[in-house]
């Protein structure tokens, strides 16, 4: 292919130099890298908190940290990981970088708003960092009332404001993606020719735009209640503490899909590329993303089955929660079927993709167990829930995120990373992850509650296994950090299409030029068509023909 010939000397990375050229950039690819740097810092901090949690829980007695400190540590772990890493994660980094390229556009619809999103996100993050450095917050990332409004004497308002502010970044990113996907697709790129990564991000953006205002209002009410005792949530002033839980989960359950839908989009790209085959049941996979986005708004009260809601409400939310598992199952089955008669190469991104499908399947199925009322009563607020959502958010989202990073790193950096070390990291993460979180299912059914600083001695063996797994997992996460950084300087230059994959992002050099494409491509076929070429570059092709 012509684009592979030579990379142009000028690309988005070296088009301009200096701090200003980054801080004032309007290039979606550079903004993606700004996000990558920022969320990596927050991920490292959140990971440090996780390490402290697992160290404390290696022994039954609460001996490493004071109870107050422990509570701040797990709260910060949750706040940082959820709001500062998992929610922005794939959309802000990979989505930002890839959506314009995948649809043959030069940038997002609103490049300045895109940059503003990063600033808003960073400012929100600074509020959270400020509260961390000044003693933190001890409410749990869920901020349940009335503990958060009237009893905690930590930095609830500052942290809440941080969450409030980062929410706007999320809304603006979602808005930007929706407009871009609607208005800026290349000629011939119809909806059903879009890569499934774009479909997944479209669905995610809908949730971001529709759901995030609810958490913003909720956190604002929380802050007002805390400052002025308005009587919204605290029964001492006539409020309803369970109302907070409804409002909180009305956003925070769909937020789970903000985290996992983009990872599903990555998985679709990886399975297509490393099976060299169109995703089986393309339309079913595409529409299942939308179905998840819609149904995801109708299941929030499954977090409240033991919070004194009526048994009839619980019944309705249980059955609705079952329904949301159907589109997820459709995706998993279609990915599996994609492998049939594929040409499967076991390269690093595919290892992460295979890890994703395995861990997400366990996360999803244990979610069905949690949606079952009779089971939830026993395991609600125990380590069973902790294990379940880590399987979804770490096993699903982070495996997807790392798989995506490994898949597109040659495009992003223009460099290749070491094959052996990257495959080893995928293996270490898979083993470390399962060792960390599988024992927690057993602990949960035995009744070990979440957020416990000390626990009965008979649960130590499983907790030690979990802590040991966490140390393996930490090694696995550090490795990509090292070899990606290494590759920036020492890695071999990447060709335009190192995997032999199909997709517009592979039609442009690695790293791409600032404007992505010298000319706007014309799309003439479906996504993932490995049997014939489905993109045309009229000028370039004409040029080639002229030379032949």
């Amino acid at each position, binding site marked *: 292919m012509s684009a592979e010939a030579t990379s142009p000397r000028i690309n988005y990375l070296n088009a301009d130099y200096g701090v200003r050229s980054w801080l004032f950039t309007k290039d979606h690819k550079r903004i993606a890298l700004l996000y990558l740097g920022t969320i990596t810092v927050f991920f490292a901090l959140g990971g440090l908190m996780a390490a402290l949690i697992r160290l404390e829980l290696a022994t039954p007695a609460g001996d490493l940290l004071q109870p107050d400190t422990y*509570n701040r540590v797990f709260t910060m772990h949750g706040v940082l990981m959820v709001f500062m890493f998992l929610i922005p994660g794939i959309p802000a980094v990979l989505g930002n970088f890839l959506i314009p390229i995948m649809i043959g556009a030069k940038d997002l619809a609103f490049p300045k708003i895109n940059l503003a999103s990063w600033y808003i996100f960073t400012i929100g993050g600074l509020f959270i960092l400020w509260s961390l450095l000044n003693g933190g917050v001890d409410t749990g990332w869920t901020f349940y009332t009335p503990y958060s409004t009237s009893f905690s004497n930590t930095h609830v308002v500052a942290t809440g404001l941080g969450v409030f502010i980062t929410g706007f970044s999320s809304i603006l990113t979602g808005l930007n993606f929706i407009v871009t996907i609607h208005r800026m697709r290349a000629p011939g790129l119809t909806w059903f020719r879009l890569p499934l990564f774009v479909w997944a991000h479209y669905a995610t953006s809908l949730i971001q735009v529709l759901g995030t205002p609810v958490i913003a209002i909720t956190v604002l009410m929380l802050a007002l209640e805390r400052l002025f005792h308005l009587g919204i949530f605290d029964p001492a002033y006539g409020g309803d503490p369970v109302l907070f839980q409804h409002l909180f989960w009305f956003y925070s359950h769909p937020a789970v899909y903000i985290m996992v839908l983009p990872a599903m989009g990555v998985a679709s790209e990886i399975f297509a590329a490393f099976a060299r085959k169109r995703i089986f049941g393309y339309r079913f996979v595409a529409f299942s993303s939308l179905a998840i986005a819609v149904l995801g708004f109708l299941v929030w009260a499954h977090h409240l089955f033991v919070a004194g809601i009526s048994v009839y409400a619980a*019944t309705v939310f249980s059955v609705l929660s*079952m329904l949301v598992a159907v589109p997820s199952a459709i995706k998993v089955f279609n990915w*599996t079927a994609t492998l049939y008669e*594929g040409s499967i190469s076991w390269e690093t991104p595919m290892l992460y993709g295979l890890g994703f499908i395995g861990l997400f399947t366990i996360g999803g199925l244990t979610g069905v167990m949690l949606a*079952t*009322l009779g089971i939830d009563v026993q395991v609600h607020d125990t380590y069973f829930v902790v294990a379940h959502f880590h399987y979804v958010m770490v096993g699903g989202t982070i495996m997807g995120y790392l798989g995506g990073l490994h898949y597109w790193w040659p495009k992003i950096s223009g460099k290749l990373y070491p094959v052996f070390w990257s495959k080893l990291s995928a293996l270490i993460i898979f083993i470390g992850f399962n060792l960390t979180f599988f024992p927690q299912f057993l602990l949960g059914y035995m009744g070990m509650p979440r957020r416990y600083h000390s626990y009965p001695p008979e649960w130590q063996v499983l907790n030690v296994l979990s802590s040991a797994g966490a140390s393996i997992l930490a090694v696995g996460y550090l490795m990509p950090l090292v070899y990606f950084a290494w590759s920036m300087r020492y890695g071999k230059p990447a060709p335009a299409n190192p995997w032999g994959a199909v997709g517009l992002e592979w039609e442009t050099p690695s790293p791409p030029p600032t404007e992505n494409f010298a000319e706007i491509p014309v799309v003439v076929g479906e996504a993932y068509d490995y049997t014939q070429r489905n993109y045309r570059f009229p000028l370039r092709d004409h040029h080639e023909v002229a030379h032949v």
Partner: protein
Amino acid sequence: MWKNFPLFPPSASTLSGDVDAVYFFGLAVAAFFSLLIFCAVLFLAIRFRRRSPDEHGTPERAIVWLEIAWSTIPLVIMLGMFGWGAKVFFDLHRPPANATEYFVVGKQWMWKFQHPTGNREINELHVPVGAPVRLTMTSEDVIHSFFVPAFRTKADVIPGRYTTLWFQATKPGTFALYCAEYCGAEHSRMIGQVVVMEPRDYQAWLVRGSATQAVAASGADLFGALSCNTCHRADSAARAPLLAGIFGREIHLADGTTIKADDNYLRESILNPAAKVVAGYQPVMPTFKGQISEEQLLQLLNYIKTMAAAPAPQQAALGGTEAR
């Protein structure tokens, strides 16, 4: 650490077997589909591994019947799980009519219990084996959650309202009690135990205790001490509805709606009397918010419930003697 290394909780209530059964079914479904996906993915990824660098896969169109099959089969299984789980959940929420009511007040960071006989204890609850026990629970401060893994049941304990939980222990023994809802610094020390005793031992334990009078009797004393009886009386001078038999009845309110007089309604009517006034009465009752503790409120409510059993004329006569 390697001794006493359980993988499954003890089972000690009439419903714990039912919860375990639906749990094992859920586990079996999860394990079956996980293994199905794992094996299929591994088999296909090896069987169809790339053999030459330029090779590509053979595309197929979606097979609609297959898509429908792998959507509906899991759905049917999940609806089965839903139905079974809902049945168990309803059982967990329906205390038998003959259940004995105990009172639980959670606070940072302890559990306070009162037996119907008036015995009080902290972080330890003694109950007889084989008898249904119903807990009426509230919190003085933040949300807690009453969780006894061996009984497979749990309910949040929420300030400003009553929640209930019931169980019937099947064997004597001591079973761990945890607070399952994060409640602040000492959350992980808000633990205790439920001591299940043979009925005879339990009676002996009650007698050994320091209870001076039953909960309902304490409530009756409060009813007089707080002068509730000056308005809630049966004669023509009554300025407030007669409370005998009110518990569990449908009440017509001044705004035209009706409400069931349950624990939470009676609680609200004592703490915030103007909120839901009974039709035909003026909102003249003063609030008792801040004047009585959660324990006293529970005693008062328990007394009002026992009034339901008492024949109304007796109450009238009582009111009559005090009148004028």
